[in-house]
């Protein structure tokens, strides 16, 4: 039985309560699938970031940009753990370097999409009326752009002016923020009806501060979940465009570029070591990002019991 003194101490102990974010983190840590996915993603990210340092240990030909006629199409062996492709480049090394590009495109494009979408959506939702009308019609316009055609044309126009990779990131980012803007706007519209927004105005917060400190933290959970899903789809977009030959320039390895060699029937049927590794890593990465998104959704939703 507890003596009176310990009960007093127990009451005194929780001096600082858990913030809603800390509660969400605790919930997230308990989600096994999401934690495994997080670990996988962190592992992949670290490996790709370390690619230049790891390359010399992975294969006898660490340079992934040079064509090596002497070592074309070698199946996996003790020299090349995953074999070499039709230009004689080590697949494993390219897989690591390719991950850098795929993840970089995914991350940067997502960051751009979320920033633009949140900015437009929150301003439209908060001010309403005329501002809302103008911004949302503009959003509709952007959403109506035929994505593929625009990417291909802009990529061609901007090629050579900006580094090929960043052309892709900017083009994807500029064309895809519409959905996020709509989502954020609808969330802000619902959230701003709460009296704490009126209260914030009446205690002298400027509109910018109300959006930043009161509205956004309360819609951030939705934005974060959306961001993970967009991250996954951005990686797919990059791969699809690169596969078609309109994405990352051919010389730079990316998972999509590596996959594009599978459009030769000979490679597809007879040399699976060339396209299987990027396909598997790509699938697993997207899957884990989606699991992370799902886990965040549960963790950030105060009503979910998991």
């Amino acid at each position, binding site marked *: 039985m507890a003596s009176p003194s310990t009960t007093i101490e127990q009451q005194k102990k929780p001096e600082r309560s858990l913030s809603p974010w800390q509660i969400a983190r605790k919930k997230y840590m308990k989600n096994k699938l999401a934690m495994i996915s997080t670990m996988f993603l962190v592992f992949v990210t670290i490996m790709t970031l370390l690619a230049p340092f790891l390359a010399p240990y992975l294969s006898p030909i660490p340079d992934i940009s040079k064509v090596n006629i002497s070592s074309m199409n070698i199946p996996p062996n003790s020299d090349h753990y995953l074999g070499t492709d039709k230009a004689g480049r080590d697949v494993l090394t390219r897989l690591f370097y390719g991950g850098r590009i795929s993840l970089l495109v995914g991350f940067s494009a997502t960051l751009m999409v979320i920033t633009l979408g949140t900015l437009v959506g929150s301003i439209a939702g908060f001010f309403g009326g005329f501002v809302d009308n103008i911004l949302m019609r503009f959003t509709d316009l952007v959403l109506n752009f035929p994505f593929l055609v625009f990417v291909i044309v802009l990529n061609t126009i901007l090629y050579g002016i900006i580094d090929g990779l960043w052309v892709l990131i900017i083009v994807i980012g500029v064309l895809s923020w519409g959905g996020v803007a709509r989502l954020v706007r609808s969330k802000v519209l619902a959230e701003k009806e709460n*009296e704490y927004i009126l209260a914030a105005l009446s*205690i*002298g917060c400027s509109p910018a501060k109300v959006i930043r*400190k009161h509205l956004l933290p309360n819609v951030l959970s939705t934005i974060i979940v959306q961001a993970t899903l967009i991250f996954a789809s951005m990686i797919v977009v990059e791969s699809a465009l690169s596969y078609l030959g309109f994405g990352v320039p051919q010389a730079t390895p990316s998972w999509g570029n590596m996959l594009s060699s599978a459009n030769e029937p000979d490679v597809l049927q007879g040399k699976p070591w060339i396209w299987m590794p990027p396909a598997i890593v790509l699938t697993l990465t997207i899957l884990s990002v989606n699991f992370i998104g799902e886990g965040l959704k549960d963790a950030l939703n105060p009503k979910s019991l998991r």
Partner: protein
Amino acid sequence: MTTRDFVQERIDSLEEREVLLDVQNLKTYYPVTGGFFKRVLGHVKAVDDISFTIRRGETLGLVGESGCGKSTTGRTILRLAKPTDGKILFNGKDITKVSGKKLQQARRDFQMVFQDPYASLNPMQMVGDIIAEPILNYEKRNKKELEKEIKALLTRVGLPEEAYYKYAHEFSGGQRQRIGIARALALNPKLIIADEPVSALDVSVQSQVLNLLKELQEEFDLTYLFIAHDLSVVKHMSDRIGVMYLGNLVEVASNKDLYREPLHPYTQALISAIPEPNTEIRKERIVLQGDVPSPQNPPTGCPFHTRCPMAMEVCSQKKPPLKEVRPGHHVACVLY
């Protein structure tokens, strides 16, 4: 000194004080739009030409049924809703038209306590930050000192100091309302607009919060505009009471006069509806017929004539102005 003498003295002393808030012919209309081009089809006349004054240190109660515009009045004075017409003078300064930075500065002197304690506190903010925010909006402060100050404020409104580190969801409705009151007090405002501060609370908690508000008024020399629909709550709190109907102020009188001798037929009906705890006394209840007309299309003449038991021919033609029929007792009715 008996209680009555005390009350009388308070009223006398209030009459000598200067006017803090002067509302003149205030109108707040909300446009009703429709169609593809958002044509203005009409206006919801939420507040339709009301005038009143509040003296420093006084509590003006504002009663009326839901939808009569009492909350809109409060919000318009704070400029959270846009006034369509009229003037709001605060301490002699016209605040009807100010905007931007100046409005932000003006808001320092009047604060609001909100109706719903569950929606009026940001769920993502620590209680300490909620209360510190108004101060930090206007001044740069030393963190340690500010924390001390806020903890003192928390103690003053009846919360433990540890509440500083907690979040709104960890408190009950009454406690949350205390946090809301502490936030309103943080800037040392002159006027507090209390928009139905207890209507969302348990009856047992209501009286605690009301008494807290009264104590704070004494201590900080606060002026209240107290909005409520509960007549007994208003009676407990107010020095003077204004009765609103359909966006209009139909009667303004001192607390005592209004309950003892209501003049406007609407006020009479309202007061007859207060439940009598003594079952021996049989009260005659005035039951009003029909519904409140739409504020989008209010009746011509006196807004109450469609339901008034004493309505006459003239009532539907001319809107009676609010006039002083006895010292300090204003009524808008042709009968007087």
